[in-house]
């Protein structure tokens, strides 16, 4: 049983880190897009559309989203079960979440810093890469921490519909076969992963905040 838990933990970590990585590097650009659209007079319409899409995706419960995505998942990943299919679902669910979190952080950059950057003649690309991202870096680390901890829960839910990992282990062995100790171990590992993420993320953000 120990080796099963170990394998399931690795599977969970694999799903967690890969979907977290993809969601971060696709969600932050979307967040930048949201931020820039909301501040540009000509792009208010596009902002309204993106804003609506983000809201819709964020308000669909994850388990429903997985079901709705089945045809897409099958097309894109070739299968609807296993960790890789789950990563697709997790990433789709996490991108709008990350986009919204990062947009909020960008909105928190003092308007004076934006003003003085504009006064130096920065173009839009420099504004994003040299000002918006560096100025929100500690916040973004915090955002990624929140995202990953959310994904821990999501991977467990995904486990219930065939993704593998600790979630599936807990359901199959614990819930269906009444092996409550397996559920307990799975929960302990999940809590430990969350705690570790929170601790590391918090430390890192604190170190970056001057």
């Amino acid at each position, binding site marked *: 049983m120990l080796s099963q838990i170990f394998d399931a933990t690795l599977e969970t970590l694999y799903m967690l880190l890969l979907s977290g990585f993809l969601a971060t590097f696709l969600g932050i650009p979307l967040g930048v897009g949201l931020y820039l659209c909301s501040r540009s007079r000509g792009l208010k319409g596009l902002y309204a559309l993106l804003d609506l899409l983000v809201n819709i995706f964020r308000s669909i419960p994850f388990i429903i989203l997985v079901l709705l995505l089945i045809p897409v998942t099958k097309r894109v990943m070739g299968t609807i079960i296993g960790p890789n299919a789950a990563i697709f679902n997790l990433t789709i669910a996490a991108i709008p979440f990350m986009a919204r979190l990062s947009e909020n952080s960008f909105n928190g950059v*003092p308007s*004076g*810093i934006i*003003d*003085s950057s*504009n*006064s*130096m*003649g*920065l*173009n839009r690309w*420099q504004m994003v890469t*040299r*000002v918006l991202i*560096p*100025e929100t*870096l*500690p916040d973004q680390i915090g955002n990624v921490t929140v995202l990953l901890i959310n994904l821990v829960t999501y991977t467990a839910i995904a486990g219930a519909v065939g993704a593998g990992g600790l979630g599936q282990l807990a359901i199959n062995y614990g819930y269906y076969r009444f092996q409550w100790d397996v559920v307990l171990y799975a929960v302990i590992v999940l809590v430990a992963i969350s705690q570790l993420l929170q601790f590391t993320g918090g430390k890192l953000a604190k170190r*970056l*905040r*001057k």
Partner: protein
Amino acid sequence: MILRVEKLNLSFEDKSGKRKILDDVSLSVEEGEIVGIVGLSGAGKTSLLRTLNLLQPVDSGSIFFDGLDIVGLKESEVRNVRKKIGVVFQSFNLYRYRTLYQNIAFPLKIQGVSKKEVEERVMNIATELGLEHRLRAYPSQLSGGEQQRAAIARALVMDPKMILLDEPTSALDPKTTCRLLDLVVSLNEKHGITFVVVTHDMDVIKRTCDRVAYLQNGKLDFFGPTHEFFVKIENNEVSDFGKPLELEKGLLSANKKILRVLFWGTRTHEPVLWKIAKENDVMINILYGKIEEFKNGPFGTLIIGVEGEKQDLFVEKLRESVFFLEEVC
């Protein structure tokens, strides 16, 4: 002429309708000059400053910078103009997660200046501004005065033709204010940098400005030399900056004739009053007097009582020799 603003209009729209912020404002700034923009809060001074590098787009009017009308330029061209105008904001706006060195180097780095040249220019400016020992500190570790100088250094590093200062002394204590004003004047004299300063601090105007633009409800009420602005204050034509000295009733009745005399320039240091009093054989009683050092010369205010047979002649003679004379009673 480095800057010429013509018939600038700006209005903001809010729920209560259109609000006029700038109303047909025209002014000009010569190269190497320091011009102050003064007025009460809400008079439109900061808005005017923000229009000068088009951080704030205008409704109508022209802004000629170095001969080029920058209103209506393409965004990429506006960016190039902005690189020639340094701006130091009221809240300094340093990058929070960059060291002082990185902050000052920032404008150069985004323009792709070589690392060696960046280092040289940052070190030169940091030394000139007395910041060389703080280069590794983060903005949150700097004092208000240091942050202010850091913001000035960051503006200077681009070698700008003109620097815009927004309320530069509002966050500083009196001693730091004093140092800052000396710095502005010395940068102006040594490097010939033109400054436009928004302020409501009379000390800033007296000690740094060649000319003053006085805004009232978005309209330019006065634009001229600093000493003339203070004559307006003394004459009660501008009431936003405190009232001129009120004389006691007792004083007024004890003296036959009371004069308010303003001196400006080199004559301030000459014994003009004594000479003319002696020639006309009148007695004078000094009721109040002060001399202030303005950027372009000393400015003296004197209130005197006069008694004697030839007192009218004395007044005539004195009027010819001083900058301004007014009979109080």
